[in-house]
């Protein structure tokens, strides 16, 4: 299978079940909503080192937010349901609570599993906090030096999907980067999906474990490292001198499939040799995204 002359490998991306929450941050202006969202989703590229994965899903118009102000929707994922509230409490408390003008709302109101995040954050109010029930939802008002921070008491949690991916194998680093940027542009703002890595792109794809260091959970994906072609069992076709990976997390598998369907063709540009995907033989993750099936 080829798209614009770029080979689509007959393989699949292997992804995992994670727990996901959607956080809606609003601000007096879009700038301040984004400032908070950027801080909230900072250092949240991979559960391997960050214990969570997060990213901006899309910008929200005032008509789409509970308080009628500009907003940002963020997806936040962890590997288990215990760590999701822990991460949210710490991160919301240090990033959104601290950010001028912001308020914070649940973006998964229909999810039956509820995380008492706002309820935990309320104690920052030191007894001066107050709550309001509006439309059956409880909100906490925390007095802060600027005025008040408003946060919803609970946030919904769903089973999501983490680790959808595809690899762009290109003639050189410039071509790989241009293709990755085009793919990210095509996938940005799609509902239910985030790209948690810097600019949506990963240059340091990893394999499980290490050949040399026992304590390492993940190390460089040497079969796809062009500089190691001569000394490893390389999986790179001739002519490939740079590889970039796009990692996708989402609320469900169809959302990730839809994003891959948009992103992969966009990456099929001049200078790109092959699009492939990372997997572990299908033994680790229950979600398998077959490239040719998705694009067929």
């Amino acid at each position, binding site marked *: 299978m080829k798209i614009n002359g770029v080979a689509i490998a007959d393989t699949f991306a292997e992804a995992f079940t994670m727990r996901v929450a959607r956080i809606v941050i609003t601000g007096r202006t879009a700038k301040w909503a984004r400032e908070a969202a950027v801080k909230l989703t900072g250092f949240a590229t991979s559960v391997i080192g960050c214990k969570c994965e997060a990213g901006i899903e899309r910008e929200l118009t005032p008509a789409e937010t*509970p*308080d*009628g*102000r500009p907003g940002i929707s963020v997806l936040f994922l962890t590997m288990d349901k215990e760590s999701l509230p822990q991460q949210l409490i710490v991160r919301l408390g240090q990033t959104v609570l601290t950010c001028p003008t912001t*308020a914070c709302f649940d973006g998964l109101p229909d999810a039956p599993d509820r995380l008492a995040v706002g309820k935990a954050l309320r104690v920052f109010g030191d007894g001066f906090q*107050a709550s*309001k*029930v*509006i*439309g059956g939802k409880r*909100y906490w*008002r925390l007095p802060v030096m600027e*005025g*008040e*921070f*408003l946060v919803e008491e609970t946030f919904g949690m769903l089973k999501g999907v983490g680790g959808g991916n595809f690899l762009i194998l290109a003639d050189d680093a410039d071509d790989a980067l241009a293709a990755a940027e085009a793919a990210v542009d095509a996938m940005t703002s799609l509902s239910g999906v985030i790209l948690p890595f810097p600019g949506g792109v990963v240059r340091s794809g990893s394999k499980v474990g290490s050949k040399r260091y026992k304590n390492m959970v993940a190390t460089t994906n040497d079969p796809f490292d062009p500089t190691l072609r001569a000394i490893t069992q390389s999986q790179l076709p001739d002519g490939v001198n740079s590889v970039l990976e796009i990692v996708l997390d989402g609320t469900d598998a169809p959302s990730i499939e839809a994003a891959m369907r948009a992103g992969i063709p966009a990456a099929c540009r001049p200078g790109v040799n092959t699009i492939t995907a990372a997997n572990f033989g299908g033994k680790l993750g229950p979600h398998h995204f077959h490239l040719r099936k998705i694009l067929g």
Partner: protein
Amino acid sequence: MSDAVTLSLAARPDHVLLADCIAADRFAGLDAKEIAELPVMHGGRPATLGEFFTIRGGHSSVVRIEGDVPQMAAIGAGMAGGELTIDGSVGRDLGLAMSGGRIDVRGPAGDNAGGARPGAARGMTGGEIIVRGNVGDEAGARMRRGIIAVTGDGGRGTGIGMIAGTVVVFGKAGPGAGRFLKRGSIVALGPIDRPGTFRYACTYRPPHVGLLLRYLRGRAGVEVAERYVAGRYERYSGDLAELGKGEILRWVGE
């Protein structure tokens, strides 16, 4: 089972008609005949609801009362859910000690809306009352939770002794509003005669007020001008003769 239960005024009461049997959630388990047989007190004498109303439908928690019923008291008392709409004015004790659901009055309401039963410590403990007109004295008295929105003027002692919850008055709030308030909010979009036991805190844009007004506009169809949603409010803490954790929020401009 019908989409709604409709009560059409057939015989205007000569005296106060105590109709605390009317509650939207209660009607969900009754047919029209059973609703008509519910007891009321007319001028202190026992009667039935069917003597005053023609009842259509049954087994629904969506209830509509057609006609002005200013002599009817205690409509929606103890209501715990459902929607009750009154197409006209209504008498005192509307939504007395209710705990859930929504009462929407398309006209003025009498005294003690959302208030407490005589001698009781708590008024309404949940739900929403929307009065599209003026309301009598002591609306929201001793309320513990819930929302009362009055698009007209509030009478004397609006929110008196409130324990928590929110009262929004679009018009003028009468004297004594918020007196003995422990927690809770009185949002005054118009003039308010503020008790001296409230102390000015600051002028700011309270985020929950915008959220609440947008909710009233979106879910309840209350006309709310944008200047109130995004506006600035003076915050007065009080009642400092009580717990002092409540507030009067007075709109001062955009």
